[in-house]
């Protein structure tokens, strides 16, 4: 605990030493500290070490984030052209910021009722208990009309991070959800387990069709009224590492466009 002006009860500068190093002391206290340092080798050494710690931090290089920033800007301008027309990709990111740390990989089973309702009602932003929503629209470059990517970030009802991408065109309407964690296969309701690619996928028996699988660090849930579309979407999803949430979401957007629009 420091005394008045950062001077310790023992008469040494204490907190005033850092303020001295930063040039943040009033003139009277500064003069006192300077005078004290001239006769106190211990405080002189402490001030020197504090100055070194300060210099070390101030000497840390600025990180060149150009690849990150340019990638972010490019994704916001993404336009996908299909034949003579354009496709609209709507992306919703429902996530807490940086919420997926290495120690947070809960064993989980997705709330299938909520995710299905979100898909059917196209109301991801209004799902029960969501705490905040940030939505951004990104316009196509001049001359290219009819294409857009919309994003939002949210924290969902139960504190679980959820990222959702919704792909729509005239024939297909698919929602893909990602949640960081390990899928608790045992906790899934009765359904069918199919092999899609190299991975097992749980398929629900109701409508719309729901598929749940593990893809890398992510539990992936796909919902659509069209079963082939569900399987196509599942097959198109990669082994995601946890990484930056938005990177995964934009990656999902790209892959859905590729499998449905470009290859479909």
């Amino acid at each position, binding site marked *: 605990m*420091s005394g008045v002006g950062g001077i310790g009860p023992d008469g040494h500068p204490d907190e005033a030493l850092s303020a001295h190093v930063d040039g943040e002391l009033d003139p009277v206290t500064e003069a006192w500290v300077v005078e004290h340092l001239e006769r106190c080798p211990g405080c002189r050494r402490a001030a020197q070490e504090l100055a070194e*710690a300060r210099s070390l931090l101030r000497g840390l290089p600025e*990180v060149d984030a150009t690849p990150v920033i340019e990638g972010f800007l490019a994704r916001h301008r993404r336009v996908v052209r299909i034949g003579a027309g354009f496709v609209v990709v709507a992306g919703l990111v429902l996530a807490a*910021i940086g919420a997926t*740390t290495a120690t*947070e*990989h809960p064993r989980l089973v997705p709330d299938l009722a909520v995710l299905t309702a979100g898909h059917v009602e196209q109301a991801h932003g209004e799902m029960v208990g969501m705490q905040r929503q*940030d939505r951004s629209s990104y316009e196509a470059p001049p001359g290219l009309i009819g294409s857009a990517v919309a994003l939002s970030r949210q924290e969902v009802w139960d504190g679980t991070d959820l990222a959702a991408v919704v792909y729509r065109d005239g024939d297909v309407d698919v929602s893909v959800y990602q949640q960081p964690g390990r899928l608790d296969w045992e906790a899934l309701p009765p359904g069918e387990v199919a092999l899609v690619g190299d991975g097992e996928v749980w398929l629900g028996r109701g409508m719309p069709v729901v598929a749940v699988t593990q893809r890398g660090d992510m539990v992936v849930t796909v919902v659509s009224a069209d079963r082939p579309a569900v399987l196509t979407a599942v097959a198109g999803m990669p082994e995601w590492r946890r990484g930056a949430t938005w990177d995964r979401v934009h990656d999902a957007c790209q892959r859905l466009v590729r499998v449905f629009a470009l290859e479909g």
Partner: protein
Amino acid sequence: MRRERREPAPGDGRWEGCDRIPTWEEVARHEGDFIYTVAYRLTGDHDDAQDLVQEVLVRVQRGLRTYQPGSLRGWLSRITTNAFLDDVRRRSRRPSVALPEDPDLVLPPSPDAADAAEAERLPDHAQAALAGLPEEFRVPVVLADVVGLSYADIAEQLDIPLGTVRSRIHRGRLALREALA
């Protein structure tokens, strides 16, 4: 990837004191390194820093409508700090379950993160020491030594008394000194 680091000095950026309000893309392009660096020093993790930067850019996009030309970096550091502290608060409310070790889940880092990590290799002991500070000390230290804010600006930005700023910076630096000894 490594750049010469200038002494932090909010006010020396190209938009400081400029009457024109930059566009969102100009902020992203010209101040992206600054935002990312502050985000990385605050979070201590490249994945979290990327998420934080993207969240900051979303907030910047909304906030530019009401931004008053002045200290752009001061404004950006405030947004970055607030977004970081919002996340810290959310995390503190969220239960976490440790994941058992599973080598199959260890996937390679993204190229962006790998590049950034390479850029940080030399001073990583200082970065590690900074990341090891409790958040209440780390934030004012970053604002002072990475952003270059005065104690008064830090107090205003964090809405804490000036004496608390001085105390936290001092205790943060003492802890750094110990960690680096």
